């Protein structure tokens, strides 16, 4: 079987298994899988009770990977996450790995921990390694962090710094389920038998897929489109849309364009193609850029959302900079 068909089968099975537990959120599930195969991490944002934690736990269930959950609190210390050296009976120090040494890490309510603790995840997320007492400890691949945060309970929280946010491949927003979805939630969760997802994929298959995915070709016009989208988020550039220049303080980093292209590559395979198209880039633009654009005071004061800015950018930036002459 060809890789494309193989990947499509895996994807369909993953989605089907997760959907057994999670009602709705098809797009969110798809984007989580895209991030997983892209080698990125996901920040899930939503109101309490929307199933953020359940989604991550379900993903861990369907993947044959080690899973750990860290509940972030203000008194959580970095060592509580990454681990520490402890003295054993023979008076020798031995490294005790923290919960970050798992393949799927759920950082629940990540914005409740102090920035010091939050930043303990930086190296792990970016380098897939942890340094303790001068010793670098490699994390086992695949390493996938899924953090959740509550957007309304701001008291006693520490908003994630830009550097931390930039480490996340996607930021996904969970909206409130509609009426039918709520009915399904009742049926699935209040019956004596709760649905359970079965394991579909192991870490090795994921790693193989990640390599294959990176081999998907991207044409220059498509890459150029992604680059122009990133540049359009920068308010200091005259070519940026007027909305960006007015309401945006900082634009997306180069990690943004990496996310766009990698995410688009996975999306193209999901769509059954061996090449990235403009539509793939557009599909991943919102989750890839929404946490990388920082609004200025005026934008915040006017109650704007970064999604509005991204929509405006998508409207303003043409797919081709110079359209060929067409009859």
């Amino acid at each position, binding site marked *: 079987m060809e890789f494309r068909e193989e990947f499509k089968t895996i994807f369909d099975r993953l989605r089907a298994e997760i959907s057994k537990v999670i009602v709705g959120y098809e797009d969110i599930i798809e984007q989580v899988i895209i991030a997983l195969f892209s080698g990125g991490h996901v920040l899930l944002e939503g109101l309490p009770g929307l199933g953020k934690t359940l989604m991550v736990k379900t993903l861990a269930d369907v993947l044959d990977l080690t899973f750990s959950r860290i509940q972030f609190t203000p008194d959580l210390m970095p060592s509580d996450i990454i681990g520490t050296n402890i003295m054993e009976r023979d008076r020798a120090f031995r490294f005790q790995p923290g919960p970050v040494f798992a393949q799927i890490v759920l950082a629940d309510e990540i914005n409740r921990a102090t920035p010091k603790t939050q930043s303990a995840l930086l190296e792990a997320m970016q380098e897939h390694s942890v340094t303790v007492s001068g010793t670098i400890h490699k994390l086992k691949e695949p390493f996938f962090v899924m953090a959740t945060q509550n957007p309304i309970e701001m008291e006693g929280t520490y908003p994630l710094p830009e550097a931390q946010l930039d480490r996340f491949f996607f930021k996904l927003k969970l909206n409130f389920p509609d009426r039918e979805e709520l009915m399904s939630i009742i049926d699935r969760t209040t019956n004596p038998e709760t649905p359970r997802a079965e394991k579909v994929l192991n870490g090795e298959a994921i790693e193989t897929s990640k390599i294959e995915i990176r*081999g998907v070709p991207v044409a220059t016009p498509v890459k150029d489109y992604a680059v122009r989208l990133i540049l359009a988020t920068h308010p200091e550039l005259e070519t940026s849309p007027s909305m960006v220049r007015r309401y945006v303080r900082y634009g997306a980093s180069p990690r943004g364009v990496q996310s766009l292209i990698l995410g688009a590559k996975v999306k193209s395979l999901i769509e059954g193609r061996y090449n990235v198209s403009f539509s793939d880039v557009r599909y991943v633009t919102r989750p890839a850029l929404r946490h990388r654009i920082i609004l200025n005071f005026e934008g915040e004061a006017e109650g704007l959302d970064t999604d509005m800015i991204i929509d405006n950018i998508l409207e303003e930036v043409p797919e081709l900079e110079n359209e060929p002459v067409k009859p």
Partner: protein
Amino acid sequence: MRELNKFISRVRLKIRSVLFFNWLLELYIYLSAIYIVNYFFHLDVSYYYLLIPVFFAIFLSLVRPIDNRDVAIIIDKDLGLDERVITSLEFNGLDSPIVKRLISETVDMLRNLNIKNVYPFRFRKRLKYLLLIPPLLFLSLSLYQNVFYPGEVSPQVEESGVSRISMDLITLQQKLVPERPDLAKRLEVLRKEMEEKRITSKEGINILEEITKEIDNTPAGNMDSNARADIKKTLELVMEGMNDKGMSPATDNENSRKEEPQDSSGEGTGGKGMEAGGDKPVDEEGGKTSPSYTGEEEDTSGAMSNEQGEQTGINEEEKSGADSAGGPVDGSAGDSGEEVEKEGTLAGSDTVEEGGTLPGKGERDNKLGEETGRNQVQNILEYVPGIAKEEGGIKLKIKGSGKETSPAVEGGTQGAPVKSVEDPVEGESIPYEYKEMIRIYFERLKGE
């Protein structure tokens, strides 16, 4: 991969040809707009301009060529191939199973496509709108002309036409001055009338034709042959110009109204003191016209006579009668001639002293050998063959009055002796037998 390149090349050729024809058509639309404006405003746009779009379309094809990359993008967009073709083209030759698979898939997709079906000859969208320009422009210009200049040639055209003709007439006039100053004078009158729009182009052409005839009839000794050819050529050009440019129909109507009295006078019913082709009563310009009328009176009445022995040239009615005689100055009694007779101008005793043989139409020889006619249309002196006297007149002695007339007819007098003279040879010093013959001749005429 060769198949992909081949397909792209074919599509590129098709697109380029379609684009070329689109550009060509677009440029011709613009050009047609120019020609429409030219039609209304006579801008003298050359027909060589028709070649410009061809060169321009070729130029655009060279300046804005379509490469394979552009074609690939167009194919991807038009056929909804999600950038497969452009990706295949870019990653051609890469040793990757994914790329190879992509290319083979793309070729499979394109293989079954018929370019004619995929890319039929089509016009660019804006051409549909551009096609509206020529008819709209034509309609708007027609409307403009009809609203602001109803039934007329546009003022620009008329102005340019008349001014050019005026210039031509001046040139012609200058050429005529040394040869035929009289004709030069007529041209000046014609020019002024045209400038004042008192004359139609048709009338102008008629006058020029008459002038041409006169030049033809001018004896070779009186005009240099080169000058004659040159003048005739210029005349033809001017007439041609007048034919082309024309004058406004309103001017024609206006002038045709002015002609009405003249026409009726030609039938002998009118001509009461009105100068033919003009509005002014003759008495206003009596000094100018009366001498010629005097001659005509003699001509038409057949006898230069007047009961009072007064110079008849000043009689308006007689003048108009002569004017309306229609030009046949042949001595036969026209309407006006009769009119004069009724007034008792045929006094039996009145005779023309100088032999009573004033020339008729000029067909008869006479002693003086000079005669003049009259252009009935323009009321301008018209010279029939004969030599004009510079001093311009024949002294007429009217018997019975004892007065001598000096009509000072410019270029000569008109008229002919007629039978009303009873015994014109009585006092002549000719042999008796001749006198008898003459008397018998006139008696016969009287009998008729």
